[in-house]
């Protein structure tokens, strides 16, 4: 049955993103994107059972239902309107996975605009809650298309705040600042370095360190031997394929061949 075990890049990414929730207790997981949504559900069904998930609208939901569950069939347990979301954000009992149009060496993220802010080349959605999220509770990022255009030396607009900026802004910014991990379609990254700059923590199976370096617009820290991102266990693969996402929507979000 080795062909059944043939694991896709998207499935590796799901597990890598689920792992960012390892050790989390009763905190609200706020995953943005299909792969992160799958990851949070997988984490809850396996090693992080106390994670609290939302219905994507304005309520906490019971359990970790399949991605394609119609809104009318979700079981909700408490109201979670935006006003209450801010109370959770500022209490720190939340771990968000945001996407990043750009991310840089210090862990700054950009969701706002490319180019000059007064007259951008590309207007994006806006900073949203990224400034507040990143200085109040654990924050991780998901970048499904790792290139020198997404992993840049300096982001054009600092939306989510990285380590150097938080340190510069002082204790109030630093106290709860915790950019935990970045997962891309090529590897897993963290900030476990003396100067809190980005480190290549692992490369996904089938990806070389050189490929990652080539697709990154700044110098990455890394250990002499870079490990390979773990593959899903049989149980995780079963949950992803048979229970949570039989429609394989995860495959549509992940770019496999590097440019």
């Amino acid at each position, binding site marked *: 049955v080795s062909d059944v075990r043939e694991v896709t890049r998207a499935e590796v990414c799901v597990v890598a993103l689920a792992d960012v929730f390892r050790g989390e207790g009763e905190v609200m997981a706020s995953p943005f994107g299909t792969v992160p949504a799958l990851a949070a559900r997988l984490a809850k069904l396996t090693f992080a059972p106390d994670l609290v998930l939302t219905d994507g609208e304005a309520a906490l939901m019971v359990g970790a239902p399949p991605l394609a569950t119609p809104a009318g069939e979700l079981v909700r347990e408490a109201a979670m309107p935006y006003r209450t979301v801010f109370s959770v954000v*500022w209490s720190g009992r939340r771990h968000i996975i945001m996407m990043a149009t750009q991310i840089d060496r210090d862990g700054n993220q950009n969701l706002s605009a490319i180019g000059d802010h007064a007259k951008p080349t590309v207007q994006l959605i806006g*900073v949203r809650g990224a400034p*507040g999220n990143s*200085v*109040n509770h654990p924050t991780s990022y998901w970048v499904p298309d790792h290139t020198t255009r997404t992993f840049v030396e300096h982001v054009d607009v600092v*939306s989510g705040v990285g380590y150097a900026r938080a340190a510069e802004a002082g204790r109030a910014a630093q106290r709860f*600042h915790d950019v935990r991990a970045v997962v891309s379609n090529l590897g897993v990254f963290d900030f476990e370095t003396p100067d809190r700059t980005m480190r290549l923590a692992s490369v996904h199976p089938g990806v070389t360190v050189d490929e990652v370096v080539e697709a990154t617009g700044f110098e990455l820290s890394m250990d002499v031997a870079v490990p390979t991102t773990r593959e899903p266990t049989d149980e995780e693969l079963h949950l992803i394929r048979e229970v949570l996402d039989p429609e394989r929507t995860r495959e549509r979000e992940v770019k496999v061949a590097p440019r």
Partner: protein
Amino acid sequence: MDKRTTVDDIVAELQPGSVIGIGGWGSRRKPMAVVRAICRSGLRDLTVVSYGGPDVGLLCATGKASTVVCPFVTLDSIPLDPHWRRVRQRGEVRLREVDEGMFFLGLQAAAWRVPFLPTRAGLGSDVLRFDPDLRTVRSPYAEGPYADASDPEDGAAEFVAAPALRLDVAIVHANIADTNGNAALRGPDPFFDDLFLGAATRRFVTAERVVEPGGLSGDGTLARTLVHRLLTDGVAETVRGAHFTSCAPDYGRDERMQKEYAAAAADDDAWAAFRGRYVDVEEAGYLAAADEAKAASA
């Protein structure tokens, strides 16, 4: 006290240069009947304060807004509003971009009549760099009985002073209101509509239905009357007044109409056609045209 009014009378409250707050969030429960009426008016140079959706896109595309204060502009099911992108990428509108939470605190500060509220949100980000008028404030509680013993340094730290977002006029859309100006938000999220009203000098509610006082007391509706009469100056009945945005539980978003709106940003011809059919017409004509297009596409 009978506060019934009309959309035209609400728009007449606005002047060139007015600061207008618009309730709802993204493409959800936006007071679109009023937005459309503003688009038809001769107003200009408005400052629009909004958790931005197609209200912002339309007011910019029609040249009504010169400044926008917001943390984002999105159509939800279409992540980026192409009209907003177009005016921004041409540098045609000034953006004061704030964090979502700073925005909430700004409305709350104005509603509570204090100059600012402190927060960590914004620290270290470019929100502070792009708006040099934003200030930080140092906590006075480094020591003494109110100090946080677990982290005295935090008690002496600099926080963002989220400035009060004072509005000249606020407009929100409710599911049901009464003639005294009470209103119920029956959807899953009331957003910050009561704070928009609290932050404004002149305060207006449009609603799917306007009933007699006492008419909001049944079926759990009373608990949803976050908008009470002390927050309102006028109430106007606008059936389908949030169209094409969603107004749960009364109706969902008209996705077909939203797509047509987004497509109209493609070029000047597309916009002229859209504007002629849906913007430069009275509200009844707009709804009829939207329904006609929906029937034709079915």
